[in-house]
């Protein structure tokens, strides 16, 4: 078991005062190396859930066991450390750093982790995503699909135990979409990385061995449906 989420609750303050509950998730478990897709409507709280799993946002209640470590008991520094060591994150909008080259962006993924400066691995990952000839390009000099591939390479750079991918293909055309999904899934398989991928796209979701619907996980949405 790489991830065990129990009884997570999260509310956000409303601008006019008071709060609105977004998440109430009794349970979500993911095995080591398991590949799961997370489906759900817009605004349902998928990104919020990923942020909580990544330790970027803290839940109001509940427990998150990541590779046996209880995230909610850690300080912010501690969560930063765990994130660096165990997690990869692919963002919907890539979030590449514009001042750094492709190779540097990937190496940044390592710098903050265990401090290994494995240029060979960074280069290999970029070759693996088909950017071996674009190592020293800045993001602005690359196409959208190429940028997303860098962000995949960056998320994998630190040999995470769990990869969170938040709609990684939302901004990519259909041809590239499939390539990127294949790339992520193959690499995760090779390196025994568990994967939670968020998507709206049913066709993409059906390729995965396990599909979770946020409507089933999140009691807040069930209440709304009733």
């Amino acid at each position, binding site marked *: 078991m790489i991830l065990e989420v129990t009884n997570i609750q999260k509310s956000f303050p409303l601008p006019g005062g008071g709060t609105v509950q977004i998440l109430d998730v009794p349970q979500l478990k993911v095995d080591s190396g398991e590949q799961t897709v997370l489906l759900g409507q817009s605004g349902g709280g998928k990104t919020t859930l990923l942020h909580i799993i990544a330790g*970027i*946002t803290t839940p109001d209640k509940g427990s998150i066991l990541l590779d046996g470590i209880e995230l909610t008991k850690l300080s912010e520094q501690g969560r930063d*450390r765990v*994130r660096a060591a165990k997690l990869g994150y692919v963002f*919907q909008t890539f979030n590449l750093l514009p001042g*750094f080259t492709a190779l540097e962006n990937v190496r940044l*993924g390592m710098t903050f982790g265990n401090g290994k400066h494995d240029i060979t691995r960074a280069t290999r990952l970029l070759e693996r995503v088909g950017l071996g000839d674009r190592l020293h390009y800045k993001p602005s000099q690359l196409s959208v699909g190429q940028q997303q591939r860098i962000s995949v390479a960056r998320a994998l750079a630190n040999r995470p135990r769990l990869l969170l991918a938040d709609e990684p293909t939302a901004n990519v055309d259909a041809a590239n979409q499939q390539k990127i999904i294949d790339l992520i899934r193959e690499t995760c398989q090779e390196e025994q990385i568990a994967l939670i991928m968020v998507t709206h796209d049913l066709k993409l979701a059906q390729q995965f061995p396990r599909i979770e619907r946020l409507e089933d996980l999140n009691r807040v949405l069930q209440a709304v449906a009733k």
Partner: protein
Amino acid sequence: MNLLLIAWRNMQQRGLSSWLTIFSMALGVTLVVIVLAISGVVTESFQRNSSVGYNIIVGAKGSPLQLTLNTVFYLSRPVENVPYSYFLEFQPGTGRQDAFKKIGGRMHEADRPGRYSRYMAGGFAVPVCLGDYFGPFRVVGTTPDFFANLRYGEAGDMEYKFSEGRNFQEYSQENGYFEAVIGSRAASEMKVKVGDKVSPSHGNPDGEGHGEKFTIVGVLAPTGTPNDRALFINMEGFYWMDKHSKPLDEVAKAEKESGLTYAETPGTAESDGLPAKLPIHQREVTAILVKPGGESGIFAANMERTINENLQAQAASPVREIANMLSMFVQPVQFALLVLTIMVCLVSAIAILVSIYNSMSERRRDIAVMRALGARRDVVLAIILAESVLIAVAGGVIGWLLGHGISAIASPWVEDQTGIQVGFLTINTWEWMLIPGIVLLAIGAGLIPAFSAYRTDVSRNLSA
């Protein structure tokens, strides 16, 4: 990838803004370096030249500093004179009585030894008459003893040498009493050489010429002292110049007021086959440079006190006067200048603060991304601090090079003016504080944006 490289990339991203802040820090440091260099030159030129080879300057009552500035540095307005007979009080042995017989004139108690003669065995007293100019340069009426007895240099042990010609003589066959020696700087600027005839002007650089011509018989080798910028003429000739003898009615008035008795003798110049000398009672001197006898001037303090008790004159210690002046006037000014330039650096540090702080809003996302990649908050803080330090140190290094470059370029001119060498690598001891100081300043300036980065809310700033 190390943090410095990340900081460097951030700096590059801010482009012009980074370079401008680097430039402003460079400017501040350049100013600090130049102020330190100037301070060093000023202090050294005073300190070095206060070892003059004598212990006491005796002159008319007044400010001892002015007497010193006048006599040693040829600065400030000329001071009052004292009678020549007062100078004779410093002759060792029977020097006073002998001089009276030789020069001739009227003098009180002419057959006793000089009042301070007992301190003078093994020492010397050199008379100096100031007040004339040669072009912009001071004219010093003195005796050949000036160059024979005085020394210069940091240890006060270097003898004066002539790059051309020789010392002047009290009397020579070809030039009589009218020989002169000129300092190296004055010679080159006034374009005179051995054999030239020069005529000093009275009172100020634009004063009228005296008519009497002195023949230059020697050019001093450069010494780096104020003597490089002066013309030295034989005192015996000086006295025969217009307006340099004390008018007889003034002498008569003074003698009458003193109520003393005066002996009179015609002097031996003529019987020795020499031209006549100005009689003692018409002679005055501006200053007397005194080195008392005895081991390392043990009499000096004693003598200084005795002279100062007397109403006729004052004794000043040049070393002490210079030290006082440095600590009372020069050092406070230097300190104020230094504080000003440090303020410039402070302003540059604030410019760094503002420039990084202003960029924070554009950087929130980048910081959040780094955090999401596992960068700890303190790492993010360190990256921003590193950027601030990088800018400041880059500015500091450029400023240091610039400051020393300017010093090096100005060096020949400074050496010309003061005799002090300032090379590219003449490093003031205070400069070693510069780098740690700048780093501290940069850290101080970086802290505010760095803490703002530290507090960045990751999830809100990620465009997920």
